[in-house]
């Protein structure tokens, strides 16, 4: 009898855990959050952007200059949408978490990494390595990123 009770409790526990896992998977694309999602695929990232774009369109704002730039999507948002907080609302609801997760997961091949590489190369320094290695080298060597950018780096 005591065993039956234990088995029942265990079954309920397993069901609850399974349910939670499913919930977590769904929340990756739907719930706004500051948390980073592990292993975001490009398709998920793209879907998040498309949902953000649709949300903006429905609110009467069209994104401009939408293009895939390297591993990321670049676009322009009308200032009126930012001022009215529509852009922030749509972004937070549909895209922020996926966008941040995707960019951080792919930062070694990002425009930011290429910018640091250009600044290191301009100084005749080793421009290979991960984003963290590049940053550490630029800091240690005292590379002035502002001066580099202004010189067209």
């Amino acid at each position: 009898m005591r065993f039956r009770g234990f088995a029942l409790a265990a079954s309920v526990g397993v069901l609850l855990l399974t349910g939670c896992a499913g919930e977590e998977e769904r929340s990756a694309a739907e719930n706004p959050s500051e948390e980073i999602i592990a292993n975001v695929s490009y398709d998920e990232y793209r879907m998040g952007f498309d949902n953000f774009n649709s949300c903006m369109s429905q609110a009467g704002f069209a994104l401009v200059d939408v293009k895939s730039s390297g591993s990321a999507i670049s676009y322009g948002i009308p200032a009126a949408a930012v001022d009215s907080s529509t852009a922030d609302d749509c972004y937070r609801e549909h895209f922020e978490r996926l966008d941040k997760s995707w960019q951080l997961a792919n930062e070694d091949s990002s425009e930011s990494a290429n910018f640091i590489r250009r600044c290191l190369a301009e100084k005749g320094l080793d421009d290979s390595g991960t984003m963290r290695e590049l940053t550490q080298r630029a800091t240690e060597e005292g590379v002035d990123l502002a001066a580099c950018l202004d010189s067209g780096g």
Partner: protein
Amino acid sequence: MKKIAGALLTFALVAGGSVVMAAPAHALGSVPKKCTYYDTATGYSSVVNGGFTSNGGVCGTAKSRLFYQTYSGSPTYYTGWTYNSSTAFTPHPGNSVRGGNHGVSNPAALYSDAKDFNS
């Protein structure tokens, strides 16, 4: 004599200061924000070269975006956010950058306003 010396000293300090503080020709601003005792987040934007937010990696994820005009007198647009663990670089998006929004995710509590700032 003392007055002349004082005036010369003042001129030297002002002139020297202006040389030290002079921003590059196209810079809109370089804004440093202390984010921990050991680290500073810097927001930088340039009219023609884009902009960035950088920190040594202690203050968390850096983010940057720029606002710009596609031609003189056009409406203003914002780029999307760029995120990076240390330096978030936003490439030049259009004709004329007007400024930047910057931030780091984990500035020290209480005294730092590095979470969201402008250049």
